[in-house]
């Protein structure tokens, strides 16, 4: 297909899809109505479970099985990156040199890194109480570490990034989520059932299994994102050598 034929075909089809989608959206319930069947039920269930943050209750209790699948996707992505970005025979690793940065930038990074880490820990730890949780806090934790790269250089990041350890931690945390689900089965309840004592509403220990799974997800996301970025950064910054490129024929 020539370029213009392809573009025309795509634009024609996309226009048709857009028309149908817009028409479909006119069939949706009106904005601002009071009927939220799932929302009402989910909030009621959240309160019964002594969990202050409904989103966390849905993520780690009511629909925890979805979250188990999602964090497995993250584990799969990390493993996939490990497999695809592995160093081949014609590539060599090297240590990138030191980079000159402004002292003010370095100072800013040095001050902000612990603050950002602390923020991440806070967001993970309060997942069952206030907006945030393992996914969001985990990403904050991972980006906090990368301040070392932004405010200094790749060497500094490598120094504070225990990559081998995080590789293992990532897998252990993912396994921990799966294993925590077994607690329900062992006590005679269902898989992933919230069988821990629910505690007092709106305290750190409330929500039963929610804070525990939330913490496991926080650890997994933080280490997973760090390892994932490490593979890409290594490939871009610390690997030399070209993979052979061959033209692919058509069918």
């Amino acid at each position, binding site marked *: 297909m020539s370029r213009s034929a392809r573009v025309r075909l795509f634009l024609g089809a*996309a226009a048709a899809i857009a028309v*149908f989608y817009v028409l479909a959206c006119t069939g949706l319930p009106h904005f601002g109505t009071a009927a939220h069947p799932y929302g009402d039920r989910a909030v009621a269930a959240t309160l019964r479970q002594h969990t202050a943050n409904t989103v966390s209750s849905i993520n780690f209790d009511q629909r925890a099985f979805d979250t188990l*699948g999602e964090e497995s996707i993250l584990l799969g*992505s990390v493993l996939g990156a490990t497999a695809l970005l592995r160093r081949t025979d014609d590539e060599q690793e090297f240590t990138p040199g030191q980079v000159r940065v402004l002292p003010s930038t370095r100072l800013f990074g040095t001050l902000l890194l612990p603050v950002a880490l602390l923020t991440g820990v806070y967001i993970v730890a309060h997942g069952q109480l206030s907006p945030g949780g393992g996914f969001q806090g985990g990403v904050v934790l991972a980006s906090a570490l990368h301040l070392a790269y932004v405010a200094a250089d790749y060497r500094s990041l490598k120094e504070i990034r225990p990559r081998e350890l995080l*590789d293992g931690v990532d897998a252990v945390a993912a396994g921990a989520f799966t294993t925590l689900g*077994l607690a329900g089965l062992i006590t005679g309840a269902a898989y992933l059932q919230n069988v821990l004592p629910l505690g007092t509403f709106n305290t750190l220990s409330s929500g039963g299994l929610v804070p525990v799974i939330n913490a496991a997800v926080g650890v997994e996301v933080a280490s997973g994102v760090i390892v994932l970025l490490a593979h890409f950064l290594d490939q871009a910054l610390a690997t030399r050598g070209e993979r052979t490129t061959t033209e692919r024929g058509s069918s």
Partner: protein
Amino acid sequence: MTAPDLLPLAVAVPLLGAALFAAVGRLLPRRACDVLVTVWALADVVLLAALWRAANRGPFASWVGGWRPRNGESVGIVLVGDPLGVGLALLVSLLVLAAVVYAWRYFAEPPTRSPGTFPALVLLFEAGMCGFALTGDLFNAFVFFELMGAVAYALTGYRVEDPRPLQGALTFGVVNSLAAYCSLMGIALLYARTGELGMAQIGRHLAAHRTDTLTVTAFVLVLTGLLTKAAMVPFHLWLPDAHAVAPTPVCMLLSGVMVELGVYGAARVYWTVFAGPGGIPAGAVRGVLVAAGVLTALLGALMCWQQRHIKRMLAFSTISHVGLFLVGTALLDAHGAAATALYVLGHAGAKAALFGLTGVLLDQYGSVDEHGLYGRARELRWSAGVMFALGGLAVAGLPPFGAGLGKALSEHAAGDFLGWLPAVFVVTSAVTGGAVLRTAARVFAGAGAVPHDSHQAETRGDDEEPEVRDPGRPVPRPMLAVPAALLAACLASGVLPGLTAGLARAGTLFTSRADYFAAAGQGPPTAFPPLSAPSLAGWTGEGALLGLVSTLVALALAATALWGPLLGGRGARRLRDLAATGSHRLVLPLRRLHSGRLGDNVAWLATGVGVLLVVFTALR
């Protein structure tokens, strides 16, 4: 512990195994890794076999997290153990077992620092496929769909030393992700209308509305992701590029069961969500999907015949068979569903075996090019060669292979709907089987004329990176034992008398909305059909005869391709000229269509969605 309690373990056990390999894989020697992953895969098989027995007594539901419905409403996720869904999960676990045993001595060097990566990815793949087969929740199905997708992209591009796997994985990833976004948008539309995510719940609530543009759009969008995985024309363009480059054990899983799961998902979504009032009329679904299935089957068969890259040939053969599965499922009756289930089972055995044997060629000769390998594999003719030919005969539908019985029963069901549909089954099986037989005769026996290179642009298969670098070693035993076992299983699935009866009942339950709703707590309890319910006929004279006919046609096609060029005489020459002209006029444009360009794939994806929207709106 009862079967409903154990149902989530079908997902949890492989997930746990994946985490284990990711965590401690680097500490284990290679052999220990191989043994451990085999034991783990075996444990999954045992678990799912037990669940399958339970599901055959009557479908059951498992509310994950104990979120049982109150007054018919729940906030949780339900898994449904019906015989067909659990049976597919069992097939997944069996193929995973075959793939990991096959891979024992397959890769020369696992990635340094992380030898556990491959087993961990395979187990995650298994968890995604099992979760997808078992879930009764539309959003949860999407999550597992994405899990199997994300892992499959990585597994496809696994051989990073060669740029082609990465290219194939990229196409696979981009096309399937775009299609999955379509599904997600469709799920969002359904959620906005009904406030529900469970399939049965959505189906129940859709009855409150008449069928409007929202219903049709949601139906088409949700189906887009599933039918892209199922490689329905014109969503199929990613498949040959991905299957041709994926490592052989991964091909066994992709072709054997992942693609088929797309058809299963589409049928499941139709029956549970859209089959009732306020859904999509059965006539429209039947008409459109049967037509698309026929198109897919014929196009796949035609392209299959044209390939000289053996893995691409097998990939197009898979497309072609999935077209037949789509036809069988889209008949929308119990008979079609049961027959297709048996066909999928038989096809999985034969196709996985053929991919495994192609892996042997790659291992020994560093090539999967039918022309380049001409006569080179003679020393393997009594082992791999015989098995390759048997696989070809099974694909062609020879009785009593399971693929043959599945074909016979599907044909019969399809013939009840449209008299000429059995011809499509016969032609497709004959052409795809013939292509395999032609390859077997050329590669393992050096039969027929020496194939000459054409000057058309085409994918050859002669400069493949061998997946194993240890020249001169004998063929590792698992690489021959696994295809043999798979072919034996394909044969067994055609002769085990209890299997057909069990699948007949599974098909009845799969197509019964009332039974599914009852199991998922969304309807009044039903009396499930008894085990002695009217079952499929098994082998009939007509089915066996058509199976023999397609096998004979396959043999004739292969013989023509092999010895046709040697025939002298004016008649033969004229026929050859005619064939060359036909191939130039008809096949060349089709080959150009399969350009492998990402842009083309995306344009065709959008076109397919647009056409389906228009057609279903017109027919609603």
